[in-house]
């Protein structure tokens, strides 16, 4: 199987370090979310993996070989970097035909990916007439053209409508289920949480986390339970008596930290407090991410210059 392996990767632009001693692996069979604020080095890392930029130090390989050493690379690796890569005056179909020809990909694949990305109807129209969402779909079509086992997508959900976001989520899950290696960058947490199994998180060009999504959230966010009773006073008294860390909301509901719904439900039943609502609130990726970056900010308060 084909992994992306990044080892001690560094890229300097002048005196600025866009990528700084980065090391991680992207494994097949799962979607790896590539997270970080704008300017964290996600796109630079992707360009380095694709051999488009030359690293200042370190290596990036795909299946153990540098990208530039791949024969007909589109058959092994598909990438979306810029939605604007297709010339505005060319049709989507002609754009993909030229790409396919360069890697001897059969012409039937062009029509297949146009169909797959929902562009078949507009394939002969000039790309300049497309919306941003349609251009994104064309970029994804180009990435899928060679039926590659490794797929890198830089902010693929940019400009997609809600339907498109659902579509790309399904697409990414499907690609991973096929056993492909899928790396998807984003700065949107909820979106990433909806499709990623694993996370690689960057901040200022450095690796902040390389972890399964579930573990990342569980380690950083305490679960909470929201509870509401017709007898608000009794509920408050009970929570206080059992020493729960609870906060009362204006609507009379309480948020109880460091407990689980099963535990609290049993307690309420024992004490005979009537329950109107009892809901477990799982931590979100966003909360976990903010927790991580807040911790990180303490260490890197000053700008990172070399």
């Amino acid at each position: 199987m084909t992994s992306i392996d990044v080892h001690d990767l560094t890229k300097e632009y002048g005196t600025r370090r866009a990528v700084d001693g980065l090391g991680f692996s992207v494994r097949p069979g799962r979607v790896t979310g590539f997270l970080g604020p704008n300017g964290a080095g996600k796109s630079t890392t992707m360009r380095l993996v694709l051999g488009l930029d030359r690293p200042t130090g370190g290596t990036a390989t795909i299946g153990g070989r540098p990208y530039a050493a791949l024969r007909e690379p589109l058959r092994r690796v598909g990438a979306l970097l810029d939605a604007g890569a297709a010339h505005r005056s060319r049709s989507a179909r002609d754009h993909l035909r030229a790409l396919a020809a360069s890697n001897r990909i059969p012409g039937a694949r062009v029509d297949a990916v146009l169909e797959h990305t929902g562009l078949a109807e507009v394939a002969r129209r000039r790309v300049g007439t497309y919306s941003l969402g349609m251009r994104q779909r064309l970029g994804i079509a180009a990435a899928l053209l060679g039926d590659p086992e490794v797929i890198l997508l830089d902010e693929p959900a940019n400009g997609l409508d809600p339907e498109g976001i659902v579509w790309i989520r399904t697409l990414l899950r499907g690609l991973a289920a096929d056993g492909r290696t899928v790396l998807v960058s984003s700065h949107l947490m909820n979106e990433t949480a909806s499709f990623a199994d694993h996370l690689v998180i960057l901040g200022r060009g450095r690796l902040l986390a390389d972890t399964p999504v579930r573990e990342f959230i569980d380690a950083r966010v305490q679960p909470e339970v929201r509870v509401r009773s017709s007898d608000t006073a009794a509920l408050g008294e009970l929570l206080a008596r059992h020493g729960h860390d609870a906060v009362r909301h204006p609507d009379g509901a309480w948020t109880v930290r460091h407990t689980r719904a099963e535990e609290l439900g049993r307690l309420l039943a024992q004490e005979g407090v009537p329950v109107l609502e009892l809901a477990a609130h799982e931590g979100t990726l966003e909360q976990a991410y903010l927790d991580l970056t807040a911790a990180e900010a303490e260490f890197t308060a000053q700008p990172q210059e070399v």
Partner: protein
Amino acid sequence: MPFVPVLRAELIKIRTLRSLIGALAAVVLVTAAFSALASAAPDENDPDPLFSAFFGISFGQIAAIAFGTTAVAAEFRGGALRLTLAATPDRPRWFAAKAAAIALPALAVGLLTGAVTLLVGKAALGAEGPTWAEGLRGAVGCALQLTLMALFAAGLTAVLRSGVATLSILIPFLLIVSFVIGDMSSGIADFLPDRAGQVALHSSWDGPLGPWTGLAMCALWSAAALLAGMWSVSRRDA
């Protein structure tokens, strides 16, 4: 990576951009039209039958330059080059394919331009026109010159990474340097790419370069520009 699929891809790119087809059409039309005008009123003081017939190349070559420039400049917009180089990581090979994909249609259109211009010129000039022998040399020279200018522009565009920059250097250069400094003739101006190449379009010449050495000089310029372009594309981050 084999060369032919990359060349095929680049030819598809050229064929599917209307602006490039338009530039090639303009090469034929502009060259023939200005030649016809010049032939209708040939220069009485300094009659050069062949150059009267091929006078329009000074304008046609601007279209050829626009063709070479646009074909390469399209890669430097919106991250197109990244996609191209992701498909073809062997950069020198990619650039060679791009140059070939520019040269082939430019040469074909150049030959057509040469033939049409010669026929128009001979028809308009009648007895004062060029002989068939020198006319044939002019037609072939015209084709080569147009191709070489397109390639020169292509190489320069790859160095400058911008079509606008290339055109704003080359067009004033051709219009001003060639017409103004060129008229003083002699010396360095004779070795500039367009002047050197156009010796092949004259019935008689008195500079250091003849028709074929002139075209070779022009080819040297184009080769230098292409090598610089290849070096720039290979060396820089995409």
